[in-house]
């Protein structure tokens, strides 16, 4: 009976089984590596650490070329609030500091620190393990998590410590641990839950301790039954059964998105313009939770992560524990990919990840998967764009409730105001719309283009406004200078006239030659102050520039 109702619901596109609207179901066959044990990736010959691997401000390198560093040593320190440091992932010497390609769609490079491993893997033990975290000061714990370089390992890489605050105004009631892993192909979180359930749950406990939350939920999709069993069993074994529970969710993409997950688990929506903490929820990825455990209880900063290395061009796909900074090329060599001809490498999952054209890029904190795909597989997905038949399938799967076809049309025509009116910036770029589009329109690409253009227009507008103010100030200053000049000239003239009058009264008209001499001196005296004035202005400018610097 239930099956029939379920079928009808599916037929009529009524989505009652998951908490959020829209979404689509991927074929589970792509999860090749589910249940494959995590293997350690060997030491590469060179490690590259880009100075920014998180959302926020870039770090500043604090090592010099030739310096010997240890595993876990800070090599680039955080700058600004929204920033976490970068650590060396093995011991070795700093070979150079310079530009290197990073996993970014632009292909632009970033300052990176190159470390040549010495093979000793000597560990920097400046962080002491704090196994009794409940007795440690909360501020210190938070500082530890920041110092360990933790950023969300699900792919968004938002500095973790920022979220872990107990705010009186918005007390966090529920901590949701994201074990969804809704992207096809990726299995790193799945495997982590199977192998490191204890660490993950301890990490969750640390988070709950930090934010003083009472309820912890580990959300797992029903396509990972083994993980559900293992996590449930570990919970019971650890005696957390009261506060922490496992919530099994139906498999639907993009349930792993933070907002969608929160809606599925708690039934609440995160209001536009606010953060999950405003509705009393905090969510983190299971990988982050495990890293928190490592940082606090073992004193190990974030130097390695689990990466799914898979794809239809990989003969023996696997989940690997990889040192951050290992090049993708080296990584793929470990699974038997030697030649990169006619291959396309995806960094991240196939729905939201980016294509790499340079296999020399390093694995960074955001890398949850490296997929080597045959070129035709990828190009089939990027079929030529055909005219939109306005079928509305894109709107049906959109988890944000947008109208992607109209949005893309407005972006295409550069009508960005209209696009914003259609909530362009509420798009989460999950790719569900492009996935179902019968016309193969690269909708997400249009949204990204639109978003980029809008922010560029915004930048230009701000710049224009600043320029206008500067120009107006300058005009005002010039006008004032002119007025002052006029004023001085007028005063001088008056004086001259007065003197001329006096002279005329005193003496006869034959004295006129003397007056002419006076005139000349007056002119000089007028010109001089104006020059001084200009110099003043220049000095002011200098000062301004210094202030800016």
């Amino acid at each position, binding site marked *: 009976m239930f099956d029939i109702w379920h079928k009808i619901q599916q037929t009529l596109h009524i989505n009652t089984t998951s908490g959020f609207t829209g979404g689509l179901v991927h074929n589970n066959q792509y999860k090749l590596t589910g249940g494959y044990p995590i293997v350690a990736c060997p030491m590469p010959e060179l490690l590259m650490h880009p100075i920014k691997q998180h959302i926020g401000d870039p770090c500043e390198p604090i090592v010099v070329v030739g310096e010997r560093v240890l595993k876990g040593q800070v090599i680039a320190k955080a700058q600004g609030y929204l920033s976490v440091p970068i650590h060396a992932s093995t011991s070795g010497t700093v070979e150079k500091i310079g530009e290197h*390609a990073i996993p970014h769609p632009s*292909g632009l490079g970033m300052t990176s620190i190159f470390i040549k491993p010495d093979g000793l893997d000597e560990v920097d033990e400046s962080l002491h393990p704090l196994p009794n975290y409940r007795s440690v000061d909360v501020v210190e714990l938070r500082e530890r998590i920041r110092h360990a370089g933790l950023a969300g390992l699900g792919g968004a890489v938002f500095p973790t410590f920022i979220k872990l605050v107990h705010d009186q105004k918005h007390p966090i009631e529920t901590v949701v641990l994201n074990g969804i892993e809704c992207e096809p192909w990726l299995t790193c979180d799945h495997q982590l839950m199977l192998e490191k359930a204890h660490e993950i749950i301890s990490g969750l406990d640390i988070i709950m301790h930090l934010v003083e939350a009472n309820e912890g939920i580990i959300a797992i999709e029903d396509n990972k039954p083994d993980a559900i069993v293992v996590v449930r069993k570990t919970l019971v074994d650890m005696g957390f059964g009261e506060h922490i529970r496992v919530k099994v969710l139906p498999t639907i993409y993009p349930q792993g998105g933070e907002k969608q997950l929160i809606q599925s688990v708690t039934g609440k929506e995160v209001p536009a313009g606010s953060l999950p903490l405003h509705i009393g929820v905090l969510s983190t990825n299971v990988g982050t939770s495990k890293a928190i455990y490592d940082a606090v209880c073992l004193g190990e900063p974030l130097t390695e992560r689990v990466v799914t290395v898979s794809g239809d061009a990989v003969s023996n796909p696997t989940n690997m524990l990889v040192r951050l900074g290992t090049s993708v090329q080296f990584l793929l060599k470990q699974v038997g990919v030697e030649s990169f001809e006619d291959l396309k490498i995806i960094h991240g999952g196939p729905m939201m990840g980016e294509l790499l054209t340079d296999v020399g890029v390093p694995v960074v904190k955001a890398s949850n998967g490296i997929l080597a795909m045959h070129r035709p597989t990828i190009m089939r997905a990027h079929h030529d764009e055909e005219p939109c038949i306005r079928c509305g399938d894109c709107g049906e799967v959109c988890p944000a409730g947008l109208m992607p076809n109209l949005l893309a049309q407005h972006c295409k025509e550069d009508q960005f105001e209209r696009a914003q009116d259609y909530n362009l910036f509420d798009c989460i770029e999950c790719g569900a719309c492009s996935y179902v589009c019968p016309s193969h329109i690269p909708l997400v690409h249009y949204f990204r*283009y639109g*978003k980029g253009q809008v922010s560029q*227009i915004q930048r230009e507008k701000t710049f*224009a406004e600043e320029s*206008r103010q500067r120009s107006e100030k300058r005009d005002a200053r010039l006008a004032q200078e002119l007025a002052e000049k006029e004023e001085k000239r007028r005063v001088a003239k008056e004086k001259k006239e007065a003197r001329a009058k006096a002279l005329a009264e005193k003496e006869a008209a034959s004295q006129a030659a003397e007056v002419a001499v006076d005139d000349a001196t007056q002119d000089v005296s007028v010109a001089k102050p104006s020059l001084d004035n200009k110099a003043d202005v220049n000095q002011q400018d200098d000062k301004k*520039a210094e202030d800016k610097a």
Partner: protein
Amino acid sequence: MEFLYPVFIFAALALVIGVGLALASRYFHVEGDPLADTIDALLPQTQCGQCGYPGCRPYANAVAADEVSVNHCVPGGERTMLQIANIMGVEPKAIEEEETVPVVAYIREDECIGCTLCIKACPVDCIIGAPKQYHTIVTDHCTGCTLCLEPCPVDCIDMVETPELLEHWSWPVPGTKRAIKAETRKANHEGES
């Protein structure tokens, strides 16, 4: 006299309406020109004078008063032209000059003689320096108007392309020149590494 009645009636009605409209026009009188403000806000404020007016505001005034067509703002490019045409309710006209890549001025300091002429020419006060000292340009504030090039007696000012920053990078529209340009850069990058 009877044939004059209609004339009187008509005149009386016209008078009443005339007085009413006169009162209305006083009540709904529009101060200033809000249209010029709107247009001014759209202009890029480079103050470059390429439109033939001594700055952005004067051009905005001229466009609002329908004295000049909407297609003279070169740095604003097609987008600005379309927006202005939209507001003015006129057919868009192509910009005659070629669209240029964004540039900023750069002073080769070892050649600068410190004459302050460029400082005086800069419409946005973004050149700093004192007489007989090297001048330099605050790149963040330079609008790329090129007005400082001409006064320079030793031609030590270059216009350089603004570098593309990673944090300002945005996706090109599928299948355009910009996309292809980005692609070649990517290829170059590959060659280097």
